[in-house]
C-alpha cells in the first residue's frame, strides 16, 4: 500500500483504491560486500589485469634461459644483471616472469572454458525447461551420463584420446562443466516458467523468445552469475590438475599447474629458499580461487541460503 496515495491525494482515495492491492516494486538491492568480499574482488581483478598485460610487464620471456644454476633463491642476482625476484626454476627461467605469463594461460583458458560451458549449459537448460517433453528427456539423460563420470577421469580420457592442445583443453573443460550448468539452468528455468508473470506474458500472447529473453533469463541471471564464480573455481582446479599431471598445457607455455609439477623436485634438490620454487605458482592458483570463493560467499549470503544449498552439491 503506497503512502503517497494515502497522504497527498486523499480526495481521490476512491479512485485509487483499486491500486491498493498492488505492491510497490521492492527497492533495488545493492550488493554490499563484506571486507573479505572486497579483498576477493581486488585479487580477482588483479589477476584478470595480469592475464591481459602479464607478458608486457614480465621482466623476461617465459621461455628465456637466463643462468647456469637452477632453483636460485628469491632475490638472486642474474649473471647478466637483473634479479630473480622469486628465484629461478629447474631450467634456469625466471619464476616471476613465468607466473605473470602463466596468468594468461591459467586464468584466460579457465574464463573462456567457463564462458563456453555457460553458453552451452544455459542454452540447453533453458531449452529443456521451456520445451519439456522429449527435448528435456534426451538432454537430461545425456547430461546424467556425463555427470556420472569423475571429472578428472573424463578429462584424462578425452585429452589422451585427442591429444593435448589449448582448444581441446577448453572444449573438454567446457563440455564437462556445461553438464552442471545445465542442471542448474534447467531447475531455475522450470521454476520461473510457472510464475504468474510468465503466465500473464503467455496470456498477452508474447512469443516464446520474448519470454525467454525478457522474463526467464533476467530472473535467472543473478543465481547463475553466482554459480559462474563457483564453476570458474572448479575449472581452474581442473585445468591446473590436468597440467599438473602433464596432460594439460604443454611447455614451453607457462601455466601455474605445470609450473608446480615442474618445480616439485626443488623440494629435494634446491638449497636455501630455492625450495619455494613450486610454492609461488601454487600460491597464485590458491589466491585466485580463494578470492573467487570469498566473493561467491558474500553474494550467496545476500541472496539467501537457498542458493548456497543448490550449489553445494
Amino acid at each position, binding site marked *: 500500500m503506497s503512502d503517497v496515495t494515502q497522504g497527498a491525494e486523499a480526495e481521490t482515495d476512491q479512485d485509487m483504491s483499486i491500486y491498493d492491492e498492488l505492491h510497490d516494486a521492492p527497492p533495488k538491492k545493492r550488493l554490499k560486500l563484506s571486507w573479505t568480499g572486497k579483498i576477493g574482488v581486488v585479487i580477482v581483478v588483479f589477476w584478470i589485469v595480469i592475464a591481459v598485460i602479464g607478458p608486457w610487464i614480465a621482466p623476461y620471456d617465459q621461455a628465456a634461459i637466463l643462468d647456469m644454476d637452477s632453483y636460485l633463491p628469491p632475490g638472486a642476482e642474474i649473471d647478466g644483471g637483473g634479479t630473480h625476484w622469486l628465484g629461478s626454476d629447474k631450467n634456469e627461467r625466471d619464476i616471476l616472469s613465468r607466473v605473470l605469463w602463466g596468468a594468461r594461460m591459467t586464468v584466460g583458458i579457465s574464463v573462456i572454458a567457463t564462458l563456453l560451458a555457460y553458453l552451452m549449459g544455459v542454452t540447453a537448460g533453458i531449452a529443456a525447461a521451456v520445451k519439456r517433453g522429449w527435448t528435456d528427456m534426451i538432454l537430461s539423460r545425456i547430461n546424467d551420463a556425463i555427470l556420472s563420470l*569423475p571429472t578428472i577421469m573424463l578429462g584424462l580420457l578425452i585429452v589422451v584420446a585427442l591429444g593435448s592442445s589449448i582448444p581441446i583443453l577448453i572444449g573438454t573443460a567446457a563440455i564437462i562443466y556445461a553438464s552442471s550448468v545445465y542442471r542448474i539452468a534447467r531447475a531455475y528455468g522450470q521454476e520461473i516458467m510457472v510464475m504468474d508473470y510468465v503466465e500473464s506474458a503467455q496470456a498477452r500472447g508474447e512469443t516464446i523468445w520474448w519470454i525467454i529473453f525478457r522474463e526467464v533469463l533476467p530472473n535467472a541471471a543473478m543465481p547463475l552469475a553466482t554459480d559462474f564464480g563457483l564453476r570458474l573455481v572448479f575449472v581452474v582446479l581442473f585445468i591446473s590438475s590436468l597440467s599438473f599431471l602433464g596432460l594439460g598445457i604443454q611447455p614451453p607455455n607457462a601455466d601455474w599447474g605445470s609450473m608446480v609439477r615442474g618445480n616439485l623436485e626443488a623440494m629435494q634438490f634446491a638449497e636455501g629458499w630455492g625450495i619455494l620454487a613450486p610454492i609461488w605458482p601454487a600460491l597464485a592458483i590458491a589466491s585466485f580461487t580463494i578470492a573467487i570463493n570469498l566473493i561467491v560467499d558474500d553474494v550467496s549470503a545476500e541472496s539467501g541460503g537457498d542458493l548456497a544449498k543448490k550449489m553445494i552439491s
Partner: protein
Amino acid sequence: MQRMVIQRILIGFVTLWVVSVLVFLMTNALPGDVAQIVLGQSATPESLAAYRAERGLDQPLIFQYFGWLGNMLTGDLGTSKAGGATISSLIGERLYNTMVMAGIVALISVPLSVGLGLMAAMYPGTWIDKSLTFGTLALISVPEFFIATFMVLIFAVQLGWLPSIARVSAEQSYYDWWRSMAMPLLVLVIVVAAQMIRMTRAGILNVMNSPYIEMAILKGVRRKRIILRHAFFNTIGPIVNVIALNLAYLVSGVVIVETIFAYPGLAKLMIDGVQTRDLPLVQACAMIFCATYVVLIILADVAAILANPRLRNPK
C-alpha cells in the same frame, strides 16, 4: 519407495553401459594403429594382418566393442601391451593398495568431519564455527596438489619426519608402512574432510530452519538437545548422501595423490598406462574407477530416497 530405489539402480546400470561405450570409443580414438605399435616399423603387411585377425582388430568397431564388453564382464581384462602380462595380474595388487588407502581415509575422515560439522552447526557464528568455515573454504578452493606440495615441504623437507615418496611393500615393518602411508593419507583426509564438514554443517543448519525446530525453540528446549535429538536424526539421510558423494570424490583425489607420492596404486598404474599408450590397461582402470564412482553415486541417491519420510511412506 521400492519402485524408486529399483528405478534408480536400473538407471545406474544404463549409466554404466553408457560409460563403457564412452571409455571404449575414447580409447579407440587414440592415434596410431595398435598392430603397428606392437609389432614395430619392420612388420610385414602379412604379419600385421595376422595380428589384427588374431585380436579381432579387423572387425567392425561394434563387434570389437561387444567382444571387449563380454570379456570384461566375464573377468577377462585382456593383456597389457607392455610386457604382455595379463591385466588382471597387474591390477590385483594395485587395486588392493588403492582400496586400503581409500578405506583408511574413509574411516578417519567420516567421523572426524561429521563431528566437526556438528560442532560448527551447534555454535553458529562463534569463533569455532568461523574458523572451521573459513579454513575449510580455503582448503576446498585450492587444488589437492597444492596441499600435498605444502605437506611435503613441511613434513619431509623442513622437519624431515616423513618420507616424500610413499613406497609400500609387503616386506615393510608395520611402523615403516604407516610412515610411508602417513603423508598421502593426511592429504586425502584433509581434502575430503574439508568438503564433508561444509556439507554436514549446511545440512544441519538447513534442518534448523524448519518449523518443528522453531517449535522446539519456542518450547524452550536447550540448543544442544535440539541439535542432538531433533535435528541430527533428520540430517542422517543428507549426511549419508554427503558421505557417499565424498567417497566418490575420493576417486579423483586418489589420481592426483598417487601421482605425487608415487604410491603403487591403481591410479598411478592408469597414468603410467596413459603415458605409454597402453590401451587395454587404461580401459580396464578407467572402467574400475568409473564403476566405483557410479555405484557410490547410486548409493548416495538411494540413501537420499530412504531418508526422506515422504518418499518412504507414499500416500
